[in-house]
């Protein structure tokens, strides 16, 4: 029976043979290696039997050699079902339409989930921000930025978030946020001194609590006590009664701001020639439908009118249910760029170097420090670069709290 197996899949035909001794026709078929089954004698002159669709050509060849008449009665199997299916246009159309529908649905966001232990208001803020980016149920997935970019944007736009993880899981966007808990700087509680954090010459002092030990224009080394927290107050009551100058130390938390002039030595090198690219802001977008390495333009034809182009591509695969198809949509942004070349004179280079050094130092010291003056200690030109050795004077707060260790 193995020979008949699978005949429904590949299709078979019931043929009716008529003529003298019709069974001999099947005998001839079998002799040539055609499998025949369910042979029935209909009446004296006719016989019916099943033949595979693939053997039909051979059967027709045998018929030409003999004087039998053959008619086809039934066609069964998938090939016939398929042809009947494809003859009906509505079926085919609706089938294609449904595939496109699923394709369409698979590329839409259905759900945006925010997890993590976040307060309600931050959660709302996130969903509002996401709406602004276009991440909301019903949005096309391939018009959105990749999750990494959304992640970056979210952490930038919502300062309360310490970290946010954005994962795309099929048609849902999973967001996991961690709130930033603003921890106040640990203040030294209890009695304390103010000591110098850096070496410098004191310029101004504002002491609100405590006993200043140094005075303006004093040079201090790091660690030196500037404002003491131990006050030697006269205990008035005791002094009056006993008639004795009895001093009792009182410990307080010293507070104050000590502005000192400090100095830094900085090295900078500035090239005399500099090349850089700048985007002008003119841009065009092109869309491609891609398959493997082959891309087919869908939208945005022709060359842009600018010559120097910066390409920025972004690929989004199209999904079918949960599988990613090998087809993808590629969005390419072409932006015009300009090449700039700067040739600086020696003086300009030095100026740029000083500016750069100042900026770097300001960044290092924080916004409260003030750079007062700078001086070039040494300069040299090497390999088209100006090397500067700068001396900078800065006025900044050098106060640092230090607890007074109790004797007990």
């Amino acid at each position: 029976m193995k020979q008949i197996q699978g005949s429904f899949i590949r299709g078979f035909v019931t043929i009716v043979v008529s003529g003298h001794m019709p069974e001999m026709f099947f005998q001839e078929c079998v002799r040539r290696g055609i499998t025949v089954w369910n042979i029935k004698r209909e009446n004296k002159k006719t016989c019916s039997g099943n033949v595979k669709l693939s053997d039909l050509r051979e059967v027709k060849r045998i018929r030409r050699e003999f004087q039998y008449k053959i008619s086809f009665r039934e066609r069964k199997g998938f090939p016939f079902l398929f042809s009947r299916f494809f003859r009906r246009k509505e079926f085919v159309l609706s089938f294609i339409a449904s595939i496109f529908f699923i394709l369409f649905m698979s590329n839409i966001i259905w759900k945006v989930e925010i997890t993590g232990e976040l307060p309600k208001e931050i959660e709302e803020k996130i969903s509002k921000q996401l709406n602004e980016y276009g991440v909301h149920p019903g949005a096309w997935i391939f018009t959105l930025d990749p999750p990494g970019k959304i992640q970056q944007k979210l952490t930038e736009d919502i300062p309360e978030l310490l970290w946010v993880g954005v994962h795309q899981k099929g048609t849902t966007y999973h967001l996991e946020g961690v709130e930033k808990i603003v921890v106040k700087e640990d203040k030294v509680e209890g009695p304390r001194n103010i000591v110098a954090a850096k070496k410098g010459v004191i310029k101004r002092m504002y002491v609100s609590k405590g006993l200043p030990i140094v005075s303006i224009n004093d040079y201090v080394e790091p660690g030196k006590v500037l404002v003491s927290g131990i006050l030697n107050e006269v205990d008035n009551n005791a002094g009056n009664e006993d008639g004795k100058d009895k001093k009792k130390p009182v410990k307080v938390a010293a507070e104050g701001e000590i502005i000192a002039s400090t100095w830094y030595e900085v090295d900078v090198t500035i090239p005399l020639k500099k090349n850089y690219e700048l985007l002008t802001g003119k841009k065009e977008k092109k869309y491609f439908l891609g398959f493997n390495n082959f891309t087919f333009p869908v939208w945005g034809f022709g060359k842009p009118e600018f010559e120097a182009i910066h390409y920025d591509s972004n690929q989004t695969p199209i999904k079918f249910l949960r599988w990613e198809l090998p087809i993808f949509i590629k969005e390419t942004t072409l932006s015009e760029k300009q090449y700039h070349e700067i040739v600086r004179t020696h003086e300009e280079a030095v100026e740029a170097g000083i500016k750069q050094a100042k900026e770097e130092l300001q960044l290092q010291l924080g916004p409260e420090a003030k750079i007062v003056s700078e001086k070039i200690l040494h300069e040299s030109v090497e390999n088209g670069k100006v090397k500067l050795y700068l001396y900078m004077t800065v006025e900044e707060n050098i106060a640092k709290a230090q607890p007074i260790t109790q004797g007990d």
Partner: protein
Amino acid sequence: MSKLQQRLRPWLVKYLSLPSDVVMELPRMTIIGQLHVYIENHKGLSVFTDNELRLKTTKGYIQIKGSSFVLKMMLPEEILLEGKITEVKFIPA
């Protein structure tokens, strides 16, 4: 030569106990009740009607009689007959 072979074959079957249907080119028939007859090693169909099947063999014919016969499967040397079998007969040529 063929004469020698014909004398040699029964001897092979008898003393080496080789299967007789293979060695002597005889048809092998499997009958399941009155329902099926499975015939191997036949030499071709000669008559097939609703109530009779006649097959050629090396030494004559096999005649099977009954009613409502259907050839369930037909291959070059095998045949599967279905129907109500009443009679199996060997007709020497």
